[in-house]
């Protein structure tokens, strides 16, 4: 039994932190936040591609580094910590993972090398309106290889080249690959809760698409894809939550009230201890998820659900209590607290809200305990 990252993985992680400290300080994040015309940090995106991170878990035969998912988890944690304003999750956790899960050789050979090189940005287009994605509400259709329908919000849909789209074909949900550069696709950028992460409304009119995976297997494949994404997102959430705790602690040690640092009051100490406890539980659940993802273990659906629920709760709690610890200054635009508050919500919604994952988890537990 070994419940830790290897020395090589840890050194990759510290290297990633140094790189992001230099290339993604929060004033760089704010350039994307403050200017609605800026969709993402293009320079950072290119630099990240040059580091090889986009292809960390992509096999060498498809142009990646072929390292594995533990390495990708280590990178994800640092990206979350830095609130990196780049389409990493959409491209790597959604598109690349979707291709590796369900793509045929042509699709993989065509797209994975371009993803690894930073030439293709991806997106996952499942939602069509308020409420969780379900077969009952799905409207987009594919017939004769042509897609019709509206998807919103699609994270990074305004800048992505290729999207995985959930749509009905012969009345059954399937996954499809759509070229978003095609003239038949209309995109409209949306105002988002976390402006450092863009989203769009995509309207497809007889847009050409290719099947991803077996016909009619869309919901099953989507569940498998989201299990993989959930673990990686959990690491981003852990990174963000830990950064919030550091910020809160640093402020609690420098801010004086009533003649002493506020970090010496139990009201603040217990608040920070509560954050620490949630962060550690989230990290432990994420580690188990990482193991399950990396080894493709049958426990993955349960492990991924636990990681997502735990990390969503930890990041939410840490980000809101970080603002509270800062007091009035924490409520200003100039303080970085709200970058994490916004990102905590973005990450907890982007692959389905925790409520959905709690339901999935309990359904799995019921089946497992009945067996």
């Amino acid at each position, binding site marked *: *039994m*070994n*419940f*830790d*990252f*290897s020395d090589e993985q840890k050194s990759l992680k510290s290297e990633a932190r140094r790189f992001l400290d230099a290339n993604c300080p929060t004033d760089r994040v704010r350039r994307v936040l403050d200017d609605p015309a800026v969709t993402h940090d293009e320079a950072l995106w290119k630099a990240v591609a040059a580091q090889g991170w986009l292809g960390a878990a992509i096999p060498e035969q498809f142009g990646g580094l072929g390292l594995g998912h*533990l390495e990708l988890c280590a990178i994800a944690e640092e990206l979350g910590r830095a609130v990196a304003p780049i389409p990493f999750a959409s491209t790597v956790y959604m598109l690349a993972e979707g291709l590796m899960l369900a793509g045929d050789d042509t699709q993989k050979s065509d797209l994975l090398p371009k993803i690894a090189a930073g030439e293709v940005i991806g997106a996952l287009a499942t939602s069509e309106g308020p409420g969780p994605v379900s077969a009952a509400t799905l409207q987009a259709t594919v017939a004769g290889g042509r897609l019709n329908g509206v998807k919103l919000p699609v994270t990074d849909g305004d800048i992505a080249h290729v999207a995985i789209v959930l749509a009905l074909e012969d009345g059954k949900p399937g996954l499809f690959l759509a070229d978003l550069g095609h003239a038949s696709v209309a995109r409209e950028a949306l105002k988002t809760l976390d402006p450092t992460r863009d989203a769009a409304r995509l309207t497809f009119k007889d847009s050409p698409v290719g099947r991803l995976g077996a016909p009619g297997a869309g919901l099953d494949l989507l569940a498998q894809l989201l299990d993989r994404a959930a673990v990686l997102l959990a690491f981003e959430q852990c990174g963000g939550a830990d950064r919030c*705790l550091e910020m809160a*602690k640093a402020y*609690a*040690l420098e801010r004086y009230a009533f003649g*002493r*640092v506020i*970090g*010496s009051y*139990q009201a*603040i*100490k*217990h608040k*920070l*201890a*509560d954050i*620490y*406890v949630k962060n*550690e*539980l*989230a990290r*432990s*659940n994420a*580690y*188990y998820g*990482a*193991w399950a993802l*990396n080894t493709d273990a049958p426990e993955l659906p349960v492990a991924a*659900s*636990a990681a997502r*629920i*735990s990390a969503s*709760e930890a990041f939410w709690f840490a980000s809101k209590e970080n603002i509270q610890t800062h007091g009035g200054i924490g409520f200003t635009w100039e303080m970085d607290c709200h970058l994490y508050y916004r990102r905590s919500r973005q990450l907890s919604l982007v692959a389905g809200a925790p*409520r959905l*994952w*709690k*339901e999935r*988890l*309990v359904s799995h*537990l*019921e089946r497992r*305990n009945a067996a």
Partner: protein
Amino acid sequence: MDFNDAPEEAAYRAQVREWLAAYAPKRAGSQADDSLAASRAWQAKKAAAGYAAITWPKAWGGQGGNPIQQVIFSAEEARHPIPPNPFQIGLGMCVPTVMTFADDATKLRFAGPAIRGEEIWCQLFSEPAGGSDVAGARTKAVRADDGSGDWLVTGQKVWTTGAQFADFGIVICRTNPDAPKHKGLTMFWIDMRAPGVEVKPIHQMSGGSGFNEVFFTEVRVADSQRLGAVDDGWKVSLVTLMNERLAVGGSVGAGWTQFLEAAKSTPGLDGAPAIEDQALRERLADWYVQAEGLKHTRNRTMTALSRGQTPGPESSIGKVVSAIQMQELGAAAIEMLDQFGIIDDPALAPLKAGFHFSLMFGPGMRIAGGTDEILKNIIAERVLGLPGDIRLDKETAFKDLPTGR
């Protein structure tokens, strides 16, 4: 990262499984009087096979093994209906303290009988005037005036687990009331059968009596029973308390599995099974996630231990999470029963009234072995490095401190 056994761990597990299959009790010891006998018998069997103190050095009767082996054994042992373990406080806290501070003859005298379950130890720290504030102990030890060098111990301890059947204890006493509170304490080991020791069970709010009050009236203690220097007992107690938080961390009572099973067989709104209630499902998911998070946090701690690192105060998180979950889960399960939840009869209530036990014992778990609040202080101060509270009792002579009632 690998959650499977390494080859040598797998071999150890196989060896443990084989031994347990041959020797473990086939049926649980009941909660009646004979449970102590059953516990002693099981402990003796484990000791003979080397499993009673896996991580202790062989010289002291242990197996010279590592913490991972202890984890493997405990996990495998828990799959069998084993009797309660009244030796944990001795082997986990008291005897290691004795081993750290006593001479070789004393160590040799106590290690074997403790491992074999022949002698049971208790920890005499908490007092009516101070549970969280252990350094506020008022039980006094004064030198006998007969020139023997012996000490006479007088005072009262409280919440002493197992004192009713303990043979020995370690006791922290006030030896210098003129010094500040942390600088006037001395630790001794004490014979619980000595004249002047009186044990009275505490009737807990949960109905049981697992804890005791212990009264000392001029109990004579030889100076050779002293652990550490005179007035240096606070340092000695820190060794014990560090071990306590590791020992008390495990979860007690019903967990998410029992809740899930109960929710399947209990009718919910409109008669459909309660498990179909979305609100209950969400709570169940939260409890599962907490329990799994704790399990894997322990696994991370074990990984650090197996690499020779010392477990830090971060292990305090276990009880902060599990104790409140015990209380909340018990209350929610009972609420699920609706009016039927009023019934606390093991013959009628689910799980032989196990959820009622969680409800009523949960408050004690949140206090025993460091209250939620003390544990959060420990996390804030020793893990996060936040400053200690402003203290009014650090420099003042103990006898001059305000005491309240």
